[in-house]
């Protein structure tokens, strides 16, 4: 039988892999990939709490759906910003981005 702890441990590993990537990567696109990992771990938790602890409700399910929609919107805007920055500065490393205005 699949215990709830196993899935929570799995999502904890995913979450803190994302935290590690967020702290260490240089490229902004790699940082965005780490953010997607963290959002995904939170989604798994929403779904599993809904499924195993409150199976009569729908809250976790709908929160997961809305989180997916918002994450897609967020990554689209972030990628548009990255492409614009690359067009101006020819570089998207976080260490090189020192000015907001050009």
């Amino acid at each position: 039988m699949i215990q709830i702890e196993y899935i929570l441990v799995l999502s904890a590993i995913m979450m803190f892999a994302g935290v590690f990537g967020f702290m260490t990567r240089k490229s902004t696109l790699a940082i965005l990939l780490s953010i997607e990992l963290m959002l995904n771990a939170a989604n798994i938790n929403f779904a599993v709490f809904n499924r195993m602890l409150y199976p009569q409700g729908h809250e976790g399910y709908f929160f997961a759906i809305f989180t997916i929609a918002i994450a897609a919107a967020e990554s689209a805007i972030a990628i548009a910003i990255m492409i614009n920055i690359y067009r101006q500065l020819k570089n998207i490393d976080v260490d090189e981005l020192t000015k907001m205005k050009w």
Partner: protein
Amino acid sequence: MESQNIMFVVLAVIVALGSLMTVMSKSIVRAATYLLVVLLGTAGLYFLMGYTFLGSVQTMVYAGGVIVLYVFAILLTRGQTDKAGKTNGAVTSWGLLLALAGVVGTLAVVCTATWHVVAEIGKPSETTNSITMDTVGHNMISTEHLGYVLPFEAVSVLLLACIVAGIVIARKR
């Protein structure tokens, strides 16, 4: 060993290794590909839980849409030549420390808490009402108790703003 347990072990190994490889691999294109594996494994977990609509949304929106967007963005900026580069040793050790502390803290909480599990995965139970497309559609546009019409409309306005902003930000001047 039941088939669900075997499936869960396979998916868990794929997801855990994939998420570690996503943050470890030097090439960003490889990292995006490992993230695709992680997202598909997560969709498999949702299917295992019986949340088929959520799994389909995960596959279509994340694996089909967001990853393609990322790969396009990576190739439009610097592509495969953009390595993660030499990372600062102090930053790496701080990140490792923070991640390990977080994992240990979360594991301590998860293992010591008592979970009142109502519905086991893989065991048919009368308390589980399976969430079908019908339920999703009715709750999504309902204004009654447990209706989600306000978040639904807010997300649609957000998506509209996102489309307009994406065009405005990324257009050539």
